[in-house]
């Protein structure tokens, strides 16, 4: 790790927020519970959306309306996960940053974000015209498959952090 990154991590560890979360026996589990809830809802809603795009579930439902309803849950849950995840990171920044599983999870999250941005950029204007999966372009279906794989990875490596983080609070 470069000295610049180490100094940033030390700065984060010295913040009152880091002290508050790491020294409070109750706060960390509560924030982690909210994080798990957020991740579960993000994962669940994204998989439902991707499976619909692939035409594997709810084929009689118009895609556009279907996506719109689930993406509200996705974004709310993502905001919850991101905020709680950031707080958890600050509380033990050095350990998280040097944890391989955390690094992989972060890379996967960046990939998921890029996948979503590209999807929006390319297909945003066309989505309202999609009623059934025959109208979904092959590229959109490929991106839905990639999305499912990435989010599976996020859950897997996210859980592995609990078993490899040093010093760990709990698993």
């Amino acid at each position, binding site marked *: 790790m470069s000295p610049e990154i180490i100094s940033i991590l030390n700065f984060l560890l010295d913040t009152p927020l880091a002290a508050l979360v790491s020294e409070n026996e109750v706060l960390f*589990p509560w924030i982690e*519970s909210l994080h798990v*809830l957020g*991740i*579960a809802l993000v994962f*669940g809603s994204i998989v439902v959306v991707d499976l619909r795009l692939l035409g594997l*579930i709810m084929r*009689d439902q118009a895609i556009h309306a279907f996506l719109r309803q689930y993406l509200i849950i996705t974004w709310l849950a993502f905001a919850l996960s991101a905020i709680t995840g950031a707080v958890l990171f600050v509380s033990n920044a050095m350990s998280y940053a040097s944890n391989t599983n955390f690094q992989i999870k972060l890379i996967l999250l960046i990939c998921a974000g890029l996948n979503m941005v590209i999807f929006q950029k390319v297909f945003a204007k066309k989505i309202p015209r999609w009623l059934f999966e025959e109208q979904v372009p092959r590229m959109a279906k490929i991106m839905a498959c990639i999305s499912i794989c990435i989010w599976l990875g996020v*859950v897997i490596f996210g*859980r592995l952090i609990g078993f490899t983080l040093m010093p760990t609070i709990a698993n």
Partner: protein
Amino acid sequence: MRPEFLLNFCAVIEDTALSQLIQRTDWLIPAVQTVHIMAIAALLISALTIHLRVIQVSFTNQSLGWTIAIFFRVLQWSVVVLLVTGLVMIIGEPARALANSAFQIKIVLLSIAMSATFYLVTQIKNTLIYAEGTKAATGAFRWVSTVAIISWISVVFSGRWIAYT
């Protein structure tokens, strides 16, 4: 609650060959916990879809009968996966689960959430609401759905607290 007989029971489970095997296999618990979380995700999104539709907060353009027909099946399978993976974790570390107050609370909340959801689905299937599809559910059903949502979310919280108590 950690009564003597429960601790003895945990000790008996811990001495079984299956428990020893689970304890010796390093990758098994992380793998099972990962599947457990994925099943929680499937369960939560199914439960939310059903109950938010009943409360009329979201998914209102989907028929109630159709929503239940699809998502209740997913919910049932998620519960099966959760029970199987949960059982593996209990056999692997019985005292950590059975003698843990967070786990005991989780079981109570799980019973409430499952009872509320199963009651609601059965009642709706037996009424005109299911047949007519888009018709709004009654006030009583909305209350049951609200209790179910709160219970399912509380199940997730108590599950995570097992690691800390």
